[in-house]
């Protein structure tokens, strides 16, 4: 019975520790230092660059006509440039 009580107490305390720690120590050093806004910009930029590659590959393999390729490529590049500019504004020193 004592063993059972010890285990249940340990489970309860462990759960409480996981829950309370961020509230008691808000600046958790183990936390990633990555700025979430920057990370989201990076992710969006990655997606945009992937799209540019894919559109180009689709064109080379004949899945896009010249006109469609030009239009889609232009749109996607404009988006990538916009994201790059936003990123530059967030990280002006890099």
């Amino acid at each position, binding site marked *: 019975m004592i063993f*059972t009580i010890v285990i249940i107490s340990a*489970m309860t305390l462990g*759960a409480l520790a996981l829950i309370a720690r961020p509230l008691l120590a*808000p600046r958790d050093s183990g936390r990633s230092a990555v700025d*979430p806004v920057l*990370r989201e910009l990076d992710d969006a930029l990655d997606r945009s660059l992937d799209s540019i*590659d894919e559109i180009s*590959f689709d064109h080379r393999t004949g899945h896009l*006509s010249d006109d*469609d390729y030009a239009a889609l490529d232009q749109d996607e590049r404009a988006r990538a440039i916009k994201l790059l500019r936003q990123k530059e504004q967030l990280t002006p020193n890099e």
Partner: protein
Amino acid sequence: MSLVGRAALLLVLASAVYAIYAALRSRRDGEAWQRSAEGAVYAVFGLASMAMGTLWLGLLTDQFQFRNVQEYTSSSLAWYFKLSALWGSQAGSLLLWMWILTMFAAAAVVLNRSRNRELMPVVVAVLMGIAVFFAFLLSFVSSPFETLATVPADGRGLNPLLQNPYMVIHPPILYLGYVGLAVPFAFAMAALVEKRLDSAWISSVRTWTIASWAFLAIGILLGSRWAYEELGWGGYWAWDPVENAAFMPWLVATAFLHSVMVQERRGMLRVWNMSLVVLTFSLALFGTFLTRSGIIASVHAFGESTLGVWFLGFIAIVLGGSVALIVARLPLLRSAHSLESFISREAVFLYNNLLLLALAFAVFWGTIFPVISEAARGSRITVGTGYYDQIAVFIGVALLILTGVGPLIPWRKASLNALRRRFMVPLVVAASTGVLLAIFTPAWENWIAGLVFVSAGFVAACIVSEYWRGTKARHAGKGLSWPRAFFGLFAQNQRRYGGYLVHLGVVVLFIGLAGSSAFSSSGDLVLNGQGERGEVAGYTFVYEESLRTSDEHKGTVGVKLGVFRDGDRVKTMEPRTNFYFADQQRSTEIAIDSNLERDVYIVLVGLSEGGVARVSVFVNPMVMWLWIAGVIITIGSVIALLPLNRRKSATTGVPATPPETVSA
């Protein structure tokens, strides 16, 4: 031990409720609450693991004071079947469902520690909301830790049908698929709540959706293999309600995986994609409900229980809440473009979606019709396999053809010249396939099977031509050697070229389905004594010996049959029947001889004291193709999922793959 398990479940419930509160509060009060909510998610996973561990320990160490241990194991059961007995019971399988959910929730939190921060509070709240539902059921409605007043000396043993290696892995893999669909659902809800309805949420759930889809596909195939080896009726798919329950979310998830590409590329089908995510998860819940409610009769289902009404209520909440959210956000979900041509990649994806949904609806209708008929007219009218076969055959062939057509048609619109260039070779291959089949095989004796084989030839040629075009473009564009250009395709665009491999698996699957269902032969033989012979489908079966053995767990009877074709011995086969003493149950051990051409499948129906053997023999062509298809689909899915060549521009500001083509 029971107390530990019960306490763990109650703590799961409490922590999950707290996680919802903290996650929602974090939307107003900031990051610390969000991290507290995420800490609660880790706690929920740890506690759910504790509950799983406790039950597994009970099963492994024969704690027969637990009802679940006593009813589903015995002391003589092999250790791996003791472990798998956890999902043999109603409550144990619910615990497995919840444990996988909490594991996925914790994984989603870890993977999004610095991503999707605006979405994560709602994602956590939704996933924990689902966890609360399951923890509540496990704590107060169907506890896996229920104890018996008197402790019996031994357990009743595991149903012999479940004592099969496929039953050790089939349910967990299927559950990985079912439960994995909760994550895309949670992200979709978060995108709706936070009004972030661009394609970002779709990118975040892509891996989860592909993985869940693959797990469902593999789980379904493993279940079919189990049914084929254990149930002894000579087939692998019977349109059983529980089989349908897994098939429906798989169909809708397949539709989503395709239509999502249209949203990514063209900004279209946003409402449609949201609806598909909701429908897929609701069908996963419906499947869980169907197996546990007791409303349908199935060899795969659990017995009668009171869980059905709880699940119905939960499904109603999920559907009602999701639909209300979608309706509220309709103005934000307008498509950026509209369909420009009915002959375009996006149009083909739409046709594919409509067919998949039509099939899912037909299967849904056939599955619930007995329940509706009973409620409306007082008598249960069962829908036969003929209904499903008729619908599935035509939709299936159309889907198969679209599998080949889709990737070859350009986005936006296709010119007649382009179509002619693209489809010339596949059409020639299809025509040649038809002619060769007519000359060398009896395939056209069943015209539907012939049509499937010809379509399969067409689609295979389409897929090969896509690999060829991609390889040629890389070879010419980058000056790579042919092998490097080919294998590099998979790293360059994993989803596309892994996906084509999955398509190839689907082609092989269709060939197996057509061959095995159209050309199967069977016969019953009564062999009165040694040396007597019988014939089925050109094979001669010679009764060589009867077998009777016994050990402390079971008695076994069997017959040794020599299998001959054109006078040559093909194989010696030994179908058997086991009788398990602990639970007084009988199971048939089917003898199967497999190769690419056919399976010889023998069931021992009876062996009299006088040695008269009655056997059922099935000769099923091309069944092995189904299992090979499963392997190809698995490999294709893994390629689509592996992190082979992801950009890592992240946060350092230096993209791993420089954006050569973009200049600011």
